[in-house]
Every structure is written in C-alpha cells, then in structure tokens.
C-alpha cells in the first residue's frame, strides 16, 4: 500500500530564500510522523504544501494518493489542519466554530451539529461549548482548533506545532488526545520544535534544517545517532571548571566541554548514564572538587542539532530574537530620553 503522505524532491522558494530544498518523504498509513526542527527550518512550508495552501515550485507531493496540485479540491475533503496556521473565530462559541467548519466540509446541518457536540465532549470542551472562544484559555483554544479539524473525520491530520506556547499541563492533555487519535488508525503529520514531543508521539521522526531533511528514523535510532545521554556538572567555584574537566577526561564517549564563565562542564556519556554519574562523583570527591549541581540530561533538540549540523537549534530563532531585543532596546532608549 502506498504511503498516506508522499513527497519527492519537494521544493519551494520565497524570493531568493530556499524554504524547501528537495524533500523526500514516505509516511505510512496509520502512523504518526514527526517533523522536528527549529523555526524557519521549512516545517510549516511543507505542511502548507501538503494542505494545498501553497503551490510547490518543484517536485511533487501526494496525500492519500491525491496530488496536492492537480487533485487539490478532492484532497481538501480528506484532510484536517490544525495548529500554527489554522485558527478559531474567537467571537463564536466553541460549538458554533465546530459547526461552521463541519458545514464547510459539506456535512448536513444536523450532522454538523451532532458531530460538533460529540467532538466537544471528547475534547473536554462540552461545558465550554456555549461560551465564546475568546473566553477560552490558550490550551482550550488549541484543543478547539484540533477538534475543528477532526469534525469531518479526515484520513490524514496535519498538526503544525500543536503545543507551541502551551503550559506543560495543557501540553500533556493535548498529547493524550493526539495518542487517542493515533489509536483510531488516523495518519498524522506533526511538526514540533521539541524532541520530547516527537519522541512521545511519533513513530518516525525527520529532523529538518534549512529546508532539507538531515536525519530520519525512529526516536531510538536518532538518539543512538546523537550519542545517548549527557552529564552536566555545575562547579561551585567556576575557576575549578577546567580542573573538573581534566578529572573527567576519558570517562564518557566524547571529550568534556567547558563553559568557564558559568562554571559548567558537559560530557556525553552514551547510554550508560547512571554508571557515569556515580563514577564522576567518586572521581571528583577524591580530588576534593565541590559541585553545586550534577544532572543527567537526555539529548535535547540542541544536542540533536549540534551533533547533526554543528550548530545549535536556536540559531534558527536568532534573527527573530535579535530584532525583539533591538525593539526592547529602543523602548528602553526612549524611556531614558523621556
């Protein structure tokens, strides 16, 4: 059986910026596929092409066997989109929002209302259904958004950063709901900036950077590629950081890195974290080196990117944050003038 989502050499340019530089993808029916990458990696661009919002400049893409360009009209009836680029009308109630989307999927009026009630119940929004969406919390809004995309029982669901900006509790709630959807045999393509999220939800993960897929596999396969866990030590006296690193040298699967200013030492320890932790404590105790903190970290998106690309994931955000900081700087400047 052909994959539910297939892409071959998919390309998209915005002016001189190459947003997608030839993406190949084959997502099996009934599986969850995670698109993992920083802002500006091209995740949203790919989702927008799969959901017919954007025309590709090269290559081709099919969803449920329908071409995203030629069969766009038929395809729209088979997919749902939620997350970053979809939205709810905050002046309408939750129920009205879902009903409207149902009607626009061409469900009959009665069917749209029945499905809206059903789906609000399922997403824990039944009681809030008669309230305007502007009174909803961020997590409720996001749930309503996902609920709306499911009203017509789409075969394939696209969730574009569904939990970005949510508090941990709301994130957990939404994860639970996404897991339920998976059990129904729906195909889901999920984009995220969080390794933990992809790890939790996706059967297979593609790491995207600068418009290309730089690694693909199951969460375990990717973690093996990255090199397992990282031991992070916080030295009491930053001046001793170098000494600590020296003491631990040769212990892990790689050389320790030192942030002398912060008094931090990081060392990749592979899959044998607990043993490495004990060993390091013993060694440092022998040398009478005092620690403020010691912890084992699972690899983060940063680690994925550092090991796969040699640059940190945040670099994708830098421009945005930089301009944000500049804005704040200007504000401060104005205040001083006044």
């Amino acid at each position, binding site marked *: 059986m052909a994959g539910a989502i297939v892409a071959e050499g998919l390309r998209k340019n915005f002016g001189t910026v190459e947003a997608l530089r030839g993406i190949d993808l084959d997502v099996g029916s009934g599986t969850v596929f995670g698109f993992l990458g920083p802002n500006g990696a091209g995740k949203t661009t790919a989702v*927008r092409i799969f*959901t*017919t*919002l*954007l*025309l590709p400049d090269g290559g081709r893409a099919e969803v449920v066997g329908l071409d995203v360009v030629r069969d766009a*009209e*038929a395809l*729209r*009836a088979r*997919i749902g*989109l939620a997350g*970053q*680029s*979809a*939205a*709810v*009308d*905050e*002046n*309408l109630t939750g129920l*009205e929002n879902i009903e*409207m*989307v149902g*009607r*626009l*999927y*061409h*469900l*009959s009026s009665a*069917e749209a209302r029945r499905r809206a009630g059903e789906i609000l119940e399922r997403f824990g929004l039944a009681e809030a259904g008669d309230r*305007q969406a502007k009174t909803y919390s961020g997590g409720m809004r996001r749930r309503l958004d996902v609920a*709306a995309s499911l009203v*017509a*029982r789409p*075969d394939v669901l696209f969730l574009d950063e569904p939990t970005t900006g949510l508090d941990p509790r709301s994130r957990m709630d939404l994860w639970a709901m996404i897991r339920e959807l998976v059990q129904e*045999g729906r195909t889901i393509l999920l984009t995220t900036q969080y390794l933990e999220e992809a790890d939790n939800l996706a059967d297979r993960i593609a790491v995207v950077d600068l418009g290309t897929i730089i690694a693909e596999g199951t969460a375990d396969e990717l973690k093996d590629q990255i090199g397992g866990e990282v031991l992070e030590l916080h030295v009491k006296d930053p001046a001793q950081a170098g000494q600590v690193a020296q003491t631990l040298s040769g212990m892990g699967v790689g050389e320790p890195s030192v942030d002398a200013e912060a008094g931090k030492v990081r060392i990749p320890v592979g899959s044998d974290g607990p043993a490495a932790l004990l060993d390091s404590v013993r060694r440092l105790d022998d040398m009478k080196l005092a620690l403020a903190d010691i912890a084992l970290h699972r690899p983060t998106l940063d680690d994925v990117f550092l090991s796969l690309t040699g640059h940190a994931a945040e670099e994708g955000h830098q421009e945005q944050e930089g301009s944000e900081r500049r804005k704040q700087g200007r504000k401060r400047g104005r205040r001083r003038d006044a």
Partner: protein
Amino acid sequence: MSTTITTPTGTRAGSRIRYGFADGMVVMRRNVLQISRIPTVLILELVQPIMFVLLFRFVFAGNIITPPGMTYVMYLMPGIFVQNAIFGSTTTAIGLAEDMKKGLVDRFRSLPMARSAVLVGRTSSDLAKNFILLMLVIPVGYLVGFRFTNGLVGAIGMVLLVLIVGFAFSWISATVGLAIKEVEGVQAAMFTGIFPIVFISSALVPVQGMVSWIQPIAKHNPVTIWANCARVLALGDVALPTDPGTKIPTTSLEGLLVLSTIWIVGLLIVFVPVSIRMYRKLT
C-alpha cells in the same frame, strides 16, 4: 473510514454553484454573528456618518449654494447615504485582513469549500451591515430636516441603489484587502483612495462650485452619477441636474439609472473575478 462528506467531485457546474452559494451563506452567517457579538463596532461606525451629517448640516450649509428649489439638507442627505455606503465597504477589506492575520483564511483555504465563499460571505454580511447602518442614518436625517418627497417607491429605490453601490465597493475593498493583507495598511489605503473619490463628486456639494479644471473629473465620477440618481429617487424631479454642460442622459432619471447600473455592473465584472482569483492564489 466512514465518511458522510458529499463534496462535488469533478466539475459538475450545478453542484459547484450550489455549494458556492451554500458555503458563502455559512461564512455570511458567521460574520453576522460576529457583528452581533461585538455591537460596539457597529456603533462606532454609526458615529462617522452622524458626524458628517451634523458638520455639513450646521457648519457648511450656509456657505454652500444649492440648486434652486432645494435646501442644503435635502441636497446633502442622499449624498451622505451614498458616501456612507462607500465608506462602509472598507470593513470588507478590514475583515478579510483580520481573518488572514488570525489564520482563519488558512483554515478556510484548507477546507473543501468553494473558493468564492469567503468573499461572497464577507461582501454579503457587509451588505447586511450597510442596510442596518442606513436604517439608522435615515432617522438622523429626518431629525435635522430631511424628508423623502418622491413617495415610497422612490425611497425604496434610493435605498436599493445605495446598498448596491456599497456592495460593488465591497468587492473593490476585498481586492485591496487581499492585496495589502495588513489591517492598518488596508485602513490607510482605503481612506486615501476613497476620500478624493467621494469628495470630488456631487455627493456633498454641487459640482458647479468646484474649480473649473476639476469639474469634468467630478462630472464623470460615478459617485456623482449615483448621488444624483439617489437624489432624484429620494426627492423627485426637483433634484434633476440641470447643468447644460452635462450630457443628456444624466439630466433624466432614466439616464441616471442606466449610467448608474452600467458603472455598478462594470465594477462587479472587474472586481469579483479579480478578487476571487487573488484569494485562490493566496500563499
């Protein structure tokens, strides 16, 4: 997977049109609900025409030479109604820009609904909104001395003309909104464009008092034709333009009606397909 979706497959024209209309009405219903949920917006929109009525009625009136047999308030009000309909059409662009910003247009574009529905729904709900505004501004006119003097049919004719003019401008507004996409930009563009169009016309003051080189522009401005037509429908023959420099058709009600219709149909023929095409090609 069970499915109850009945999307038109292929290009069956009949079902296409049926869904186009039905989808448009779903969107219109949502927009009307929105207006009813935030009535302050409507109230604020009402302030502007009332301010214009009061300013022109009590500040400008004594300084404006009106055609014989007509007081300025009688001359002014039909023009205000037309002006109000045109100004009111800016909400089409603003509403679209807001929907784009909030991501609602993305959601709509990912649904199997008709590509025209968002625009049909928006222009229709703005038509309904313009109707409500008109029904509120007419009594204000009555308070400051305006009266319909051409019978009920004439009055209804004027109301219809004003609403259709507003509807045609809504499609221009939709085109501008889709081109600019930003709420603030849209507001600026619409008002910079609309002010001269409305002011260089007979909507508020007679063309005869304008500088000579601007008069030909004003005379051929469709707003002049619509304002003159609205005036004759509201007031009767007393409002027929008598300017000898104007071509014959514009000095009779029939001529005014024909020219008004030609302009409205012309604008719709251009801007309906252009804006739908732009919506389709959004990225």
